[in-house]
């Protein structure tokens, strides 16, 4: 699979909104999706790489990345009217049904690669979304952390809205 170029004019910085994280889950027989990051000012995927470096007798370093454990925190994650994901997580929280936190599919869409109608994306199945706390000052905040499974299917999405279709790369 060839490396995709950045689809921006030369030297243009990629706006943050072009990196999109979307949660997907099943409610009964209905598939639900919701973009993450509404009212969040800053959020990054941290790869938490396990790195091992050895140095030979000549002083040359050899570094191995043994594994990554990607994680993305959303803080604040404000409880907003109309948010089905917030309702889902709050329901799990109330019941302390923590086993249900690991049922999410997460899409990471890099809209700065690919083309309109075929934005590149990666699909992680069996991911976990954990609520870290609930409370706050003026508004109810329930910061969450997304733990990616690394069970990845690479592909594209046809549009940037909840009703997108994911197509796995050939």
């Amino acid at each position: 699979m060839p490396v995709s170029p950045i689809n921006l004019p030369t030297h243009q910085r990629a706006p943050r909104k072009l990196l999109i994280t979307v949660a997907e889950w099943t409610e009964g027989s209905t598939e639900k999706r919701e973009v993450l990051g509404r009212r969040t000012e800053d959020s990054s995927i941290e790869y938490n790489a396990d790195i091992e470096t050895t140095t030979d007798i000549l002083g040359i370093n050899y570094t191995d990345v043994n594994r990554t454990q990607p994680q993305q925190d959303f803080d604040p994650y404000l409880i907003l009217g109309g948010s089905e994901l917030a309702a889902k997580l709050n329901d799990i929280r109330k019941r302390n049904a923590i086993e249900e936190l690991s049922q999410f599919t997460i899409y990471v869409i890099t809209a700065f690669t690919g083309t309109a109608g075929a934005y590149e994306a990666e699909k992680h199945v069996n991911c976990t979304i954990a609520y870290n706390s609930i409370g706050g000052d003026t508004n109810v905040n329930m910061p969450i952390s997304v733990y990616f499974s690394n069970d990845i299917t690479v592909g594209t999405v046809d549009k940037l809205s909840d009703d997108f279709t994911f197509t796995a790369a050939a």
Partner: protein
Amino acid sequence: MADKHQAVIDYLINCPNILNSPLYFNFINAEDNTNQFLTKSNDKYTNTKYIDGSVGKLYTFTIITFKSVNDIAIVKLPDYPNENVSDMTDIQGLIEWINEQDELRNFPNFGEDCIVEAISTTTDEPTFDGIDEQTEPNLAVYSITIQIEYIDISKRLWR
């Protein structure tokens, strides 16, 4: 994009304090019991940028109210209201109306690209800005600054 100034004027007209006395936009030939809608600009750098491309913004304006003054001492008897005191109480009504609208989540319509979140006054009482002695009668100048918090979603990518 909706005209926010017109949207706020259309909204304020529903307030009895504004409805029952003339309202002027920025320019005014001040007389007793008139109101001036004074626009204010907000520093863009105070905007809050969110990772989805939406931006938290403030729309700020001041309502200046002119009231004729008197120099009669307060009579310490019931049923003898002092004009200056009753004027202040009257102007306070706008603050109470704004607070009520915020509780009811009744906000100006900034159009489909904006989500209005809150409306509030920056003070709990009107500010007394002084006496305009160039007019006859002299006019007391009171001001109330009002802020509307809204999210501009026009640049949001994910709909």
